[in-house]
Structures are given as structure tokens and as C-alpha cells.
């Protein structure tokens, strides 16, 4: 009789433990989704939002999702070193140099329409992901420089090749003080 009781208690305990583990597992999986979402938002915040697709993904948000799922962090040419360092910090990884397969580091740049050649076909306006091109059918178009991300998505659809990508005027480089003797360690330390 007593052995039966012990047996029953054993069954009950293991069932309770199993149930508890199941509940915890479900809770953990449910929590994982918002956690992943929060990470994607954090990653998206440090990407330059040019929506250029040079990383191989159709925009910054998809690339952020891919990074959260384990993609390489060194595929964003418009972001350059700063973005790579930021991503490395965020994901606790080592910063790596930019993957040359996706392009070279770009200085800050904007699109410029040579207006006397524009035929007003609206193709670049449809291509612009941030509505930075102003114009109407059969009328000249122009780029609003302050809104342009320099993604160069408008260059390819233009039938008359009248769009140039030119460097932005804003200086984006900080030079370190130079009062020192040349030091081989410099190169190593300056690498992100």
C-alpha cells in the first residue's frame, strides 16, 4: 500500500515537472520572437537606411533581419567602418574590414540630374525609395539634395543616362592629431 502511494507520488511529481518544463519552453519560445524583433530594430538603427541593396538584400530592414539571423556584418558599403564597428559592438563580434564583393566604402554622396537632358519620364521618381526626386510627366525632374541618400537606385532606370552621383559637401572625416613619430602599431590600432 505504502509502495503504491510512493509510486503515485513519483508519477505525479514527474508529470508536474514535465508540465512545468513544457510551460517554460513555450514561454521561452514566445519571448524569443520579441527579443529577435528588438535586436532587428537595434541593428536597423545603425544601418544607413540608403535602401541601396548593395549588401545583397532588398533593403536595410531585410539586411538587419538577416544579420539578426547570422549574416555577415561587413556587407554595407555606404555605412563604412563606422557601421561595421557599431554592428560589431551590438552583436559582440570582432569588427572586420568591409567585404570587397559588395563594393568599396563610399564617401557621403548624392544624385544629381543634368536637367537639360532630362526628358521627364518619371522612371527615376518611381525608383527613389525616399521620394527625394521632384518632377512630373514630361516636365524636368530634380533631386532634393538634403533628402537624397545617395543609393544610386535612380541611375540604372534612366533612359538617357542623365543622373550623376556626386560627392556630398559635408565633411565626414576626422583627422587624428599628428604630433608623433611613425609607429607601425598605428596601422593595427586604427583598424576597426
Amino acid at each position, binding site marked *: 500500500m505504502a509502495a503504491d502511494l510512493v509510486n503515485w507520488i513519483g508519477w505525479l511529481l514527474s508529470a508536474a515537472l514535465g508540465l512545468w518544463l513544457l510551460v517554460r519552453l513555450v514561454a521561452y519560445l514566445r519571448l524569443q520572437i520579441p527579443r529577435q524583433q528588438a535586436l532587428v530594430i537595434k541593428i536597423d538603427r545603425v544601418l544607413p537606411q540608403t535602401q541601396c541593396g548593395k549588401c545583397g538584400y532588398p533593403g536595410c530592414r531585410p539586411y538587419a533581419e538577416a544579420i539578426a539571423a547570422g549574416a555577415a556584418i561587413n556587407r554595407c558599403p555606404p555605412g563604412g567602418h563606422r557601421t561595421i564597428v*557599431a554592428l560589431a559592438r551590438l552583436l559582440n563580434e570582432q569588427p572586420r574590414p568591409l567585404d570587397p564583393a559588395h563594393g568599396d566604402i563610399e564617401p557621403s554622396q548624392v544624385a544629381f540630374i543634368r536637367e537639360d537632358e532630362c526628358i521627364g519620364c518619371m522612371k527615376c521618381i518611381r525608383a527613389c525609395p525616399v521620394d527625394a526626386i521632384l518632377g512630373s510627366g514630361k516636365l524636368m525632374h530634380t533631386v532634393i539634395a538634403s533628402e537624397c541618400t545617395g543609393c544610386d537606385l535612380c541611375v540604372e532606370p534612366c533612359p538617357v543616362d542623365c543622373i550623376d552621383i556626386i560627392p556630398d559637401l559635408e565633411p565626414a572625416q576626422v583627422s587624428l592629431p599628428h*604630433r608623433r613619430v611613425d609607429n607601425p602599431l598605428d596601422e593595427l590600432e586604427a583598424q576597426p
Partner: protein
Amino acid sequence: MIVNKRLLLRAKHGAFSRAGGMKLTSTKAAALRCGISSMPPPPRLFLEVADHRSRPAALLVKAGDKVRKFQQLSRTVDLSQAPVFSPLSATVAAISRDAHTRRTTIRLDILASDENAESETLPPLTDYGSLTAAQITERIAILGVSGLGGRGMPVAHKLAAAKKRRVQQLIINAVESDPDISADEAMIRERSKAVVEGARILQRASSAERCGIAISKEKKAAIAALRAALAGSDIELLILPTHYPLGEEHRLIYALFGTETAPSASILDAGFLCFNAATAHAVALAVNRGEPMISRIVSVDGPTPLRPQNCEVLFGTPIWHLLEVCGADPAQKDRTLINGSMRGQLLENTQAVVHSGVRGVRILDASELLQSDELERNCINCGHCVSACPVNLQPQALFRASRARDTFQLAALGLEDCIDCGLCDQVCPSHLPLRDYFGAGRSEMRLWQGSVDRADHFRNRFDAHQARAERKLRRPQSVALAARQSDSKTEFSRTSAKAEIAAAVARVKARRAERAEDQGSPRKDDD
């Protein structure tokens, strides 16, 4: 008048070593040997008017105008800027605007003849006690009084910010802990009454419960003058030991009251308000006499033939004009240092002028230059900078992060709390120019913040673009059809479109070929 003994006691028990900083060798004595000298007016003044953050500066004069002394030259948008006044009767010779620095410079040619013709300003007051706090602030705003402690923030702006919060303690800062600037000390020796008067006015304007004048104990003559002026007043005299950088307001508050405030935060949050002693003097002149702020006292120091002294200088005086009047050798133009050897900067632009933020000018000795020219070595982790740092940062770690341009590390190490006192730079045995590195680090952080802000802006626009595209997809069939029909009238995307595009492309090609021929022919001649 109450002398705060507690402070000296704290010093005896070594509390000040926790407040950070160190005792530095002072070079003030030479300049203090004589009183304040007033400079003859220079032939030309260059007044700078900065743009407001949202719009260009609004000037009240144009080139060719004649202006009188005290005449207002610029209009302000809000309290964040102080209006500019003409220091003397003059002709507006030229006005130029630099779009890059967002500054407008007004060149004034001084008229010798009618020097005393003054423009009317606000009438003098016999008793400021009849005014309310808001009226005093308004008077200060109209007369354009800015802080003279270095940052040059308009006094009315500070008072308006203080109005929203309860100010418990007003501090008039006469500590001037830089080892080679003595402008405030010289002024207090001669004009202590006006400083105390300014302190009273500021106390009334800020509705502060208590008011104290903080000064370091080695300024004996200035303390005696203040004691005499403070007789019978309830303003405290707060005497501190001689320590650099106690003149910095957060360090000062910690030394006086033991309250820790982050240098990146406002001291107003902790119930303190701080004005420089020279600012209090200017406030007294403005409120009582109705005089706008047109000059300040500048400490001039350097090797012979220059005579170290404290000069009362009109705003807009070229710094090198001032130095030449004091006897400096123009061959030393490339070693002019502004605002002291600790926090100062070498003057790159020899055309720079005196403004409210210029407290001292100094020409460096040949020996000092040798030292600063010495090449930097590697960081040896000696830790001198860590023990020197008055705000408990880790300069050697900040240096590494600045070198690696790691903005995240810089933020984590608290670069924004660096008060730029320069002690780490001075004690470093490897001659690392740490202040310059931190300056580069700050720029790097600013640039990164700028790019994050830009990215946020782009993301908002992209989201709006996507939302619109989605709305377009989801609209009912009839609306879409109507839109397509109206589109076809203006746009050439449908049937006739291809032919029209082809024609346009052909037109552009023809035009381009024509242009290529035009450009090509002279080039062929060259060949």
C-alpha cells in the same frame, strides 16, 4: 557677511584630493602688479554675429551707415542669442557673411571726431528693487549681457531656464583657477562693489534662496576688497583652496557643497546656478546704468618685450592689435594662445577678435614651444593621467578608443563628461596630445550621431513611401481605373509612351552627338 570656515576645514582633512585636480604654479603675479589698463580704441573693430540655429542673423544696419556708441546692430530671435551693440561711434565699412561658420562679420571704422555721441539705451535705474525678477531678466536680455566665463551664454537665457526650476544656491564664480589668467582677480580688486551689486541683482532675478561668492584663498587683495564690499550683506564669501580646475562649475559645486553633478548635465537640476564674477559686474552695469555689454577685461601675458597686464578691451578688437599695443613682437604671431595654457588653444586665425569668451591671451615662450613640439611616444599605461583626472575618467582608455575611432567605447567611457581641463595632457610622460585626441573623438561621436539622425530621417521617408505604395495597391478597382485614365493624360507610361520615349532618347542622343562634335573639333586642332 559670513565666511564659510567649513571649507577650509575640509581642505585640512584632505577632502579636496577627492575633488580631483592639483595645485599648479601660478604665473599671475606679473600681470597683477599694475591695475587694469584701458586700451586706446583701435582704428577698426570686427564684430561677429552668429546665425540663429534656424535662420540667418538679422542685422539692423547696412554698409555705409553711421552708428553711435551703444547703438544696437543686430536683432535677436529668442533668448538663446544676445544682441550686438556698437562699442564706439563708427561707420559700418563692410558686412560679410561666412556661410560655412554661419557668422556675419561687421567691420566698423571708428570715427575720431564724435566719440562721445551715445545712442540712447534703457534709462538708468536708481533702484532695481522696484523691478520684478521678470523685468530684471528682460532688461538684461535687451542690453545683451552674455556670460564672460568662457562659453558666452546669454545671461537672460540662463535666468529664463532657472525660472522654471527652484534655485537654492546662486554662486558667483571668482575662482579663476587657470594658472595664468588673472582678469577676474584684477577686476574684483578694483570693482568689488559692482560685483557684489551684480550678485544681488542676479539673486533677485533668479529668486535664489542663498547667494555666495566663491574665490580661492590665494587672492588676498581681492578677498579683502570683497569683504569690504560685502559688509552688512547676507551674501556669503566662500573661500576655497588653490586648486585647478576648481573654477569649473561642477567641480566648484562638489568642492563647496559635496554634491556630485555630471559635467554633461546642467547644474540647475541640482538647484544651483552659477555666474562668473565678471558677468555679475556686467549685469550691474546693465541694470543700474543701462549700459549694454561692449567690453571685457582680458589677461595679457607673454615674454618680453610684452608687458603682462590686464586690459579692458572693446569687443571686436583684433587680438593681435591688442598684443601689439601691449608691446608684443609680431614675429611671434604663430604662438598666440587663447584662454590659458591649460584649456587654451593656439590661435590659427591671426585675424581673430576679442569676444565675450576670450578671457586671456598669451604668447608662448620659446621654452614652452620646445616642450609642445616634442614628439609623442607610446602610452606606457603609467596611470598618471588617471590620478590627475578631476572627473574620474580613464584618459588612457579614452585615448585608445579615440585612436580606434570607436564611438561606442568613447561613449561607454564617458567622454561627454570630460571637462577638457588639460591635466592629463600636462602630466603625460609620453607627451601624448590627449586633449587633441579627445577633440577628435568628440568630432567622431558628433559625426556618428549625425549619421544616425540622418538614417532615422531616411527611414521615416522610406516608411512613408512604402505606406503610400501599399495604399495604392489596396485602393478599390474603380478608383485605380480612374487614376490610370487621368494618369494617361499627363504621363506617357502606356500605349503612346514607348514611341515618345524613343523619340526623346533620340533627341537627347542627337543633341549629345552635336555637343561632342563641338567639343571635339578644337581638341583635334590641339592634337
